[in-house]
């Protein structure tokens, strides 16, 4: 892990903090798009040492958080069907739907497996030939190539009982919708490192051009975050708006063409429901007709139920960066990680979970 320690070192961090302080010569608001960035910023204690004038706003980059209430209800309904076994990433387990969560469905007998990779879900399908294994696909560009590769593997191995319920989302299209909201006032984007490793730094160019937004792709260690924020502050101070890549050890300008090709082979763009943002044209991915055999939506004839957001929950506005958890009347009262009302309190990348876990007032 030496390669990570280099980016966390105290001696290395001090000059970077000083550099950031110098760079913030006029006030700026920056949205960290990605939930992993939100968590990393809190975990490193960066918020407690940010220069005055630099304000951070959390964005919609937590896949579980932007999963719509209606998708959540559909997931829970599928898990309860006889003969079905669902495989999920752990974060989804405790997210409340309109009536209970997958965790509750599991306690009543639904077959739910937590996996670390979609390939594990495929192996579960092979090991349980009597069940239809449905992988609940929740995620952005980072997780999609793994799902595409798994569907290809299932195709080659002729696995008949492996299905994917795709709610996969794509980031730049959603950001366009978000940025067209006049309530959101930001000067720059700390662009997600993992997503950009797939789609490339170039994917952010239209946002820089059309919305005059400073864009810097950044990694997740202390030095990465400080460097990314410094570059953003300089762009704003010098009025030289562009896309910069501060994470070149993982991200290229074009991204990962092999992953992109694999995704394009399996998926095609589709309209997608986002919690808080509503239905955004072509901001999601559906499985192509050619691979419909692996598509849970068509094979299980799933229709999405009508569902309402939990009453009083501000997840939607928090995801849009126009509110913060502290403004939510439920935060840390009725809604805690032990008794979550909205998904932002459940996910390990959720803004509310980050505020709750790390952001409590140090002096109180």
């Amino acid at each position, binding site marked *: *892990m030496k390669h*990570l320690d280099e980016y*966390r*070192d*105290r001696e290395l*961090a*001090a000059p970077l*903090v000083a550099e950031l302080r110098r760079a913030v010569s006029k006030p700026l608001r920056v949205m960290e798009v990605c939930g992993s960035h939100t968590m990393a910023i*809190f*975990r*490193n*204690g*960066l*918020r*407690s*040492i940010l220069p005055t004038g630099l304000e951070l706003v959390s964005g919609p980059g937590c896949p579980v958080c932007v999963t719509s209430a209606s998708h959540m209800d559909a997931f829970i309904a599928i898990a309860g069907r006889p003969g079905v076994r669902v495989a999920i990433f*752990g974060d989804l*387990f*405790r997210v409340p739907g309109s009536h209970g969560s997958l*965790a509750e469905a599991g306690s009543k007998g639904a077959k739910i497996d*937590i996996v*670390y990779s979609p390939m*594990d879900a495929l192996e579960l399908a092979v090991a349980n030939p009597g069940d239809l294994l449905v992988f609940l696909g929740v995620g952005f560009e980072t997780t999609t190539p793994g799902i595409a590769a798994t569907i290809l593997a299932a195709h080659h191995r002729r696995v008949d009982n492996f299905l994917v319920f795709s709610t996969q989302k794509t980031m730049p299209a959603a950001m366009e919708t978000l940025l067209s909201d006049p309530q959101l006032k930001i000067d720059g984007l700390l662009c997600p490192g993992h997503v950009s490793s797939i789609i490339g730094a170039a994917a952010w160019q239209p946002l820089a051009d059309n919305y005059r937004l400073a864009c810097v792709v950044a990694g997740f260690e*202390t030095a990465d975050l*400080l460097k990314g924020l410094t570059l953003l502050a300089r762009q704003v101070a010098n009025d030289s708006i562009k896309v910069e890549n501060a994470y070149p050890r993982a991200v290229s300008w074009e991204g990962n063409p092999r992953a992109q090709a694999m995704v394009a082979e399996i998926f095609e763009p589709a309209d997608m429901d986002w919690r808080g943002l509503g239905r955004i044209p072509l901001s999601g991915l559906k499985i192509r007709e050619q691979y419909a055999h692996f598509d849970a939506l068509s094979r299980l004839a799933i229709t999405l139920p009508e569902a309402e957001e939990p009453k009083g929950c501000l997840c939607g506005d928090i995801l849009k960066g126009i509110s913060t958890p502290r403004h939510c009347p439920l935060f840390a009262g009725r809604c*805690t*990680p*032990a008794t*979550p009302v909205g998904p932002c309190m*459940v996910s*390990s990348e959720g803004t509310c979970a980050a505020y*709750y*876990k*790390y*952001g*409590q007032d*140090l*002096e109180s």
Partner: protein
Amino acid sequence: MTGKTIQLDHGSGGLASQQLIAEVFLKHLDNPTLHSLEDSAVLANQPGRLAFTTDSYVVDPIFFPGGDIGKLAVHGTINDLAMRGARPYCLSLGLILEEGLELDELEKVIISISEACREAGVAIVTGDTKVVPRGKADKIFINTSGIGFIDDHIDISAKNAKKGDIVILSGTMGDHGITIMTRQAGIAVEGKLASDTMPLHRLVATLLKEIPGSVHVLRDPTRGGVATTLNEVAGNCGLGIELREESLPVRPEVRAACELLGLEPLYLANEGKCLVIVAAEEATRALQIIRGCQEGREAAIIGELVAGKPGRVIINTPVGGARVVTPLHGIPLPRIC
């Protein structure tokens, strides 16, 4: 007994039960007190105050690198006694077995319990076995209760922590928790992950012999990890605890696995580590004593008790920032102990 499995009548109290007791339990765990097989063990009194504790063990898988459910059941209860400054005296052993468990697996666990008891110098003096139908339990569940004695001049409790006291951790964090979690997830990690399960009563006895008045609090950070245990201490004593992130000892392979799974070592279970809170003036001496013990070679000073932040645990990060360390909540952790 190769190939044989546990049947429901092994728990009936009849002939099969007696055979199991004779051929497995007494064979490996025998001692004069247990040997009578009467309804309760009768024990000679010992000087000092009596400490009494109980814990149940349901870890999955039952065998893992560094230990097994049997060792864990002995060490865990010994450590709970030691954390109040007690000398462990004896243990009870309650087993709930799932029908169909391989007898060989059961015997392996009992041999492990026997070895752990012998090594720790603590005997099983009474026990009980039940068998439940297949699917109603997972292989083997164990409960151990323990009795120990505390010397009259010893008073170890979270409420004794004082402002300025120093927090020492007796070794690296998270070894047990990450070993179990990677096993459950079927993830192979480069380097050798192993549980740290071990008894800490000798380390505690050495400390209490050398600096009895200066040791204020002893806690073993098991489920919930160092973060949760220190929050409990902070809550109990009404003081704050400040940690320095770089001082926290973590093995590189544990750190690597945590990065992979998105976990924090601060929240992972330990089964052979203790937090020692000592008077500041004896902190260096305490660290030397702990490091001089086989169980504490990698001990480190990790923080101190402070006024002004009652009940809070704060961590100072390498970048010069600070954040609150909350207790563990709501994270879907598997069964780890």
